[in-house]
């Protein structure tokens, strides 16, 4: 049953210091059998993209509650793609008003997990999406 481990990078871009959610999600993912590279606070989009490359992650999870998501999240996705990491699933959580979600999705954020999301929802989403991505890469 050697299913490949899912590696997830959890980062908090910008100056936002509220890491309660990021830590809870990191633990939940670990409890679901994933390997979580937790890079913590005060990450720039450049740091996140470079770490994602070196760690060859399947998923990048961005937590942001400061309101600066429109400036920082699309930039992070852009840098990931520039480094050739097209298959990496990028998800976000924190305080992101509903009306900003479509724009973020357009910019490449696959899903936004707002306040009140259960950890099971996040775990299942990641599991399913990563399996999908891996399947389509094999077939390609």
């Amino acid at each position, binding site marked *: 049953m*050697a299913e*490949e*481990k899912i*590696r997830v990078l959890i980062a908090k871009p910008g100056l936002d210091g509220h890491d309660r959610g990021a830590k809870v999600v*990191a*633990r939940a*993912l*670990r*409890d*679901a*059998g*994933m*390997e*979580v*590279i*937790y*890079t*913590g606070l*005060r990450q720039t989009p*450049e*740091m996140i993209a*470079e*770490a994602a*490359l*070196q*760690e*060859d992650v399947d998923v990048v999870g961005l937590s942001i509650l400061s309101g600066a998501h429109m400036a920082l999240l699309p930039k992070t996705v852009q840098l990931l793609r520039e*480094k*050739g*990491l097209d298959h990496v699933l990028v998800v976000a959580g924190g305080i992101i008003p509903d009306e900003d979600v479509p724009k973020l999705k357009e910019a490449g954020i696959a899903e936004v997990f707002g306040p009140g999301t259960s950890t099971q929802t996040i775990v299942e989403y990641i599991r399913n999406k990563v399996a999908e991505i891996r399947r389509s890469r094999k077939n390609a």
Partner: protein
Amino acid sequence: MLDELVRAAILGDKRAIARLISIAENNGTLAREALKALYPYTGKAHVIGVTGAPGTGKSTLVNELAKEFRLRGLKVGIVAVDPTSPFTGGAILGDRIRMRDLYNDPGVFIRSMATRGSLGGLARATADAVKILDAAGYDKILVETVGAGQAEVDIASTAHTTIVVEVPGLGDDIQVIKAGILEIADIFVVNKADLEGADGVALSLEVMMSLGNSEKIIHHGILMEIKPAAQSPQPRWRPPICKTIATRGEGIKALAETIEKHLAFLKESGAWEEKEKLRASREVEEILRTELLKRVLSKVDRQAIEEILGRVVKREIDPYTAAEKLAGGLS
């Protein structure tokens, strides 16, 4: 596809290196092919193991050492190992947080690995990751272990230079006496040396070393302790004790110099070759063991194995006889 990756990695392409390490971790047939292709390019890097209990500041120390080596124009690879939860199979890999200064440096590569069921302080694939970084041209490869205890033996056989990190205030006397520590350390670091008790720890280490007479020597490919009276023409290395305050970058330059001194000692004394031979023998043996077991088990059918095991449980035959029977299936 694999050739491309290997070629790119040898040229230093980080994406290729990252992909290859993942392939090695997932240990399929691809892994073997990749490592076969890379192997001729390995053997140049100086592998430095950093071990010590949690809370000793290993990650910060590794970060500072890497910065120092970079100042000297050396390329630095870092492999940071953290434990996989035995219950969930997952892991939190948090050592990168300490290394934020290095993220932008083209001459640095950092990879976090989980032990994934390996019982030691290293992941099974750590040695592979080291080979990949070696082939990719990294001059120094720092391997930071879990520091779990008996695990230390793993690092001693993977690294050329093993650094054991201690700090004051962790109930040190017990740490130092812990079996295996003295034997594997090439260099002791007393980190957080600004804290009370730092001198005490250094002293304890000195005392332990003299009491234990643990001057090491490579003799017939085996690490041995030697009593001072013994005659031996081979030069010795007495593990120095370095004091550092990693968070302030203090003592790092001296530590780096000590590490280089150890490298010089290894090369000049022939100990480098002995270590390489030791590594090679352990590795081949390990692979052989796995390989042979696989072959035995593939030659005997499942039913037969189950049947034999059933007889062992019922005390009809003993395990030795059972194994002989199964091995007999080979010839």
